[in-house]
């Protein structure tokens, strides 16, 4: 049952991701992306990661996609009109469907392969300590260095972005 749900959600996730690329309208692409973020949150939920699932919704489907839609609307991006593209005929509906089928088969192959959950986020540990506590303990003890490095990197990129914007 769970395996089947994961399979269905994965196929939907790949389908929405493909639609992000093949939509001709930028806002439609962004909406497919929201759908994609959402279905990935469902996948996390099926793996029993409630907290990470809701963070996926808040951060990606909520905040980041809102930023992207804001940028698209601010710049007033319209439908791209490069209709004479040869690639378009190659990648119309039928081929897309075949590709999706192949990807689905690939997922089935991977899905039934032997898998084991490694690391400290196991089911019994999550029941015992709670998911948020486990994550917090990991981030603020073992994973402290990478966590701080990532935050420094992000700060540096913000400063860089402000510098680039100020130059004009």
């Amino acid at each position, binding site marked *: 049952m769970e395996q089947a749900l994961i399979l269905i959600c994965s196929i939907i996730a790949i389908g929405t991701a493909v639609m992000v690329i093949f939509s001709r309208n930028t806002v*439609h692409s962004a909406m497919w992306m929201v759908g994609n973020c959402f279905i990935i949150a469902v996948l996390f939920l099926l793996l029993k990661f409630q*907290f990470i699932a809701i963070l996926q919704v808040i951060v990606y*489907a909520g905040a980041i996609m809102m930023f992207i839609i804001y940028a698209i609307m601010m710049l007033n991006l319209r439908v791209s009109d490069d209709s004479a593209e040869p690639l378009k005929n190659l990648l119309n509906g039928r081929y897309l469907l075949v590709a999706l089928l192949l990807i689905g088969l690939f997922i089935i192959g991977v899905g039934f392969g032997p898998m084991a959950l490694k690391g400290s986020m196991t089911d019994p540990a999550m029941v015992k300590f*709670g998911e948020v506590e486990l994550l917090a303990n990991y981030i603020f003890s073992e994973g402290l260095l990478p966590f701080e490095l990532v935050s420094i990197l992000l700060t540096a990129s913000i400063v860089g972005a402000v510098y680039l914007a100020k130059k004009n």
Partner: protein
Amino acid sequence: MVEYLIIPVIKLIVIFSVFLLIAAYTTYMERKVLGHMQLRYGPMRVGFHGLLQPIADGIKNLFKEDLIPENADKTVFVLAPAISIAVAIILLSVIPFGPPIKILGREINLYLANPSIGILFILGFSTLGSYGNILGGWSSGNKYGYMGGLRGSAMIISYEISMAFAVISIIMITGSFSIVDMVNAQAGVWNIFKQPIAFLVFLISGIAELNRTPFDMPEAESELCCGYNVEYSSMKFALFFLAEYIHMIVFASLVATLFLGGWHGPAFVPGVVWFFLKMFAVIFLCIWVRATFPRLRYDKVMKLEWKFLLPVALLNILVTGLVMALL
């Protein structure tokens, strides 16, 4: 079977119908209160003192012509109100509106679900609801709608942050993400006395996120002639309207549960009554604010968030952490 199917379905139906009725009558309350504050009567014609006005409005909306503009993006245009109302109704499922009660020897909890991530659930999905407004504005192919949607997304991006930070300080003193735990933790002292600054930040950014006056940028009548929903008619418009009022009810119940002690209160009336009293008090406050303040200019709204509310909320978290570490 009874535990997992019948009771939840009954709860679902009760919550759905009761809150839709409340949402309909909140429109009546808003018009009536606004009317009396402006020294007029408000709706008076339908029923005693206009009591049947929301029902008359609903019937009128059902029979209006459903227009789709020529240069609208049809799929998105139809999808937008659906997103709006669906997300608003989903939010109602995690709000606890009373202590557990006993019916036929069974203990019934007065909420549909109590996920361990309850408050994050509400924060996440309330953002998703505003996609309805934004896409509605974008898809109608109208410059006013477009501007309304753009402003709506800017408002959500900014005010969501201070709202979340206000909630974080509550999470810190409760030590849990579950809304029911938050209510239980307030059995003695309400959070409004422990976290007055977080309360103010939450209230201001909440009213801003609801797009209500003085922050009603996406639907400023005098600038955008009603903003994102300008091209909508009939039931589609009614759905936007209803979603807005359900969002207001959810916001009011959140203020009541996070800061005003939820269902706790002196025991001479049951907890459910206390909850709804507090909820309507907050709704009344929202209407009062609307009747009192003029609309802020767009840049001032943004300044208020980024230069005042956000630093205050951040400082509040720091101070809360310090006090908790010292005590």
